[in-house]
């Protein structure tokens, strides 16, 4: 029991930190530009595919460095030549634009790399068990994922709180007009933030690709969950996004690892149904089965009872 719990916690932590790497970029972009970037997970997918291609020719480590950079540049270009143009048509148009972009990126990836799953492997260097607990191995690569994610957060945190550009960004989040009036080039800052945010997503893709498999649906799998996270955490709140990422990561991990279902509950209260009962599906429901829908359930509940999210202040 304890081993299940510990491994579920570790796996939940890996997922949660990975989710936060996406959610942090999305939150930064939303706070600055008021745009919920539907295509954010698509940049994550691009990161994985670029890294895969680079790893074929040069190696994993080159991919780790160059893939996020390429993704970031692409993101900045999208902001400069796409989003900025749509901006004047309002928020709905922006949201619809990023929605279309997500659609297009998926098609482009299928066009360039094909529909099949790519054999993107993590390097031999990290192919050993980091430690063995209760006879189960915890792979070094997962440890590496945790290390990279935490490293990124520390950098991000320091940049945002200590550096000049970080202070401008923080100010631009709350008072965009004032910052513009102070003579800062807000469009350039926007482009930069969009680029960095998408590069972070790309990096997440690079390190997640070998574990979560690299295939054209990988953006869709994670995309709406990341959306759910930034909304649950509170739009524009980095701390909220962090809590929500870990919450969702752990929640799903526990739900999958658990072995309880409706049947256990019914046994507990002493009720039983025939297999032919019309609601048989409901009576045989198990927690691992509902794990994929838990985030959405949580989203709807949070939005109904607390539309600003856990730590959000702005209500739009």
């Amino acid at each position, binding site marked *: 029991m304890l081993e299940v719990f510990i491994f579920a916690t570790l796996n939940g932590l890996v997922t949660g930190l990975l989710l936060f790497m996406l959610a942090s970029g999305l939150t930064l972009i939303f706070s600055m530009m008021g745009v919920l970037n539907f295509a954010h997970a698509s940049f994550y997918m691009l990161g994985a595919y670029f890294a895969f291609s680079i790893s074929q020719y040069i190696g994993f480590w080159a991919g780790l460095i160059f893939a996020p950079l390429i993704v970031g540049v692409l993101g900045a270009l999208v902001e400069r030549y796409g989003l900025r143009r749509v901006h004047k048509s309002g928020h709905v148009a922006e949201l619809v*634009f990023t929605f*279309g972009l997500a659609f*297009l990126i998926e*098609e482009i990836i299928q066009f360039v790399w094909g529909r099949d799953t790519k054999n993107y492997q993590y390097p031999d260097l990290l192919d050993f068990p980091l430690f063995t607990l209760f006879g189960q191995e915890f792979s070094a690569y997962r440890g590496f994922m945790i290390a990279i994610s935490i490293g990124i957060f520390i950098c991000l945190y320091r940049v945002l709180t200590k550096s000049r550009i970080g202070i401008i960004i923080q100010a631009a989040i709350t008072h965009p007009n004032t910052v513009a009036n102070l003579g800062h080039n807000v469009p350039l800052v926007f482009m930069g933030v969009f680029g960095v945010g998408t590069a972070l997503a790309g990096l997440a893709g690079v390190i997640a690709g070998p574990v979560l498999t690299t295939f054209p649906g990988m953006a869709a799998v994670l995309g*709406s969950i990341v959306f759910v996270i930034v909304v649950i955490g509170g739009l524009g709140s980095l701390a909220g996004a962090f809590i929500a990422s870990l919450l969702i990561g752990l929640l799903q991990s526990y739900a999958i690892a658990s072995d309880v279902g409706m049947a256990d509950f019914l046994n507990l209260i002493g009720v039983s149904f025939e297999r032919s009962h019309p609601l048989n*599906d409901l009576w045989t429901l198990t927690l691992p089965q509902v794990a994929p*829908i838990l985030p*959405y359930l949580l*989203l*709807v509940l949070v939005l109904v009872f607390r539309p600003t999210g856990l730590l959000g202040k702005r209500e739009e």
Partner: protein
Amino acid sequence: MGLIKKLSVWIGYLVALLVAPLFFDSILAISILNQMTIAIIFALSYNMLLGQGGMLSFGHAVYFGLGGFLAVHALILIEHETVFFSITFIPAIGGIIGLLAAVFIGSFSTRKAGTVFAMISLGIGELVASSSLIFSDFFGGEAGISGDRTFGPLFFGFDFAQNIEIYYLSAVWVFIATIFMYLFTQTPAGRMANAVRENPERAEFIGYSARKVRFISFCASGLFAGIAGGLFALNYEFITEENLNAITSGRVLLMAYIGGLGYFIGPIIGAVILTLMNSLLSNYSELWMLYLGIMFLLTVMFLPKGFAGFIMMHQTAWVKGSLKQLAVPYLITGIPALLFSTACVAIIEMSASEEEVFHYLGMELNPHSIFTWVIAIIIVVASFYATRRSLLQLANAWESANEIPDSKDSES
């Protein structure tokens, strides 16, 4: 005068619906027409939310799909003779289910418009789609469920075994649904939906609860989406999870947006265009979804009011009678633009093609020869340059065609 004009538009619409299968009478054409009728109702119902009510939904397929699933179940019940009525009323069942679902979901999701509404709709959409896979007894899992529309009492001698019979049934439904959706825009509830979209706060100060106004539009929209789902069930006689998941929700957003949100006719145009692309383009190219994505992004960027908006842009010139001044400038820009797109498509298709000889617009191209590529790239670059160069003259022509001669409107 206004009434006659309006009436003639409606009669024209009805006639178009009725005679369409006479001109397009192949099996493929009838099936495309059937898809169009479904898409038209669905897209119009979506526009009640987004275009008229300002509610961006990422989960509109929920009402379409639930209506469709219940409609197939109704078909099964008719087949088992548990109930006894004509299948012509099946879309009404879909509509009632769509309405009930919208009443329930709308009761908490319409409190706010904007991002919160969009996110709730996304969450509900994912929730319903994933749940449908879990409850496989009712929804049939990945395979979906199927029925047979030829049971039940005959309707004036028709058993609807033929697709053409279903088409005429759909045409009647789509005509009635379109009329009612149009009339809704002309009622106090419909007009206040516009007002709440524009300025929910002020609407509250003139006596209207913004939430309740949204709720009414939301329910009406669910009703018509359910009717579309019911027609889908009749046409295909089966339905799967895909019909209530994000793919279908995304497609209806595309239709309404490409057609034009601001105009009642917009979603109809969008539904027709997308259904045609879906059915025809997919025969010619496996990459049609890629083209669809490109077209959609270009529409959002350059035609924010969609195709209907693009047509309506010419109203001033039309009234002035200066529309023909634009013909030549349009040609000057249009020809290189067309050349540019065909050359781009050729390059995309060539790089995807694994054949020795690549057939394109009657030409036989060799994708393995560098020569072909160089020519294609030269055409792309040259036509792009020519298009860009021609934009200035188009802008000038546009300005002079739309120039208002006197200060008719500038002073009052």
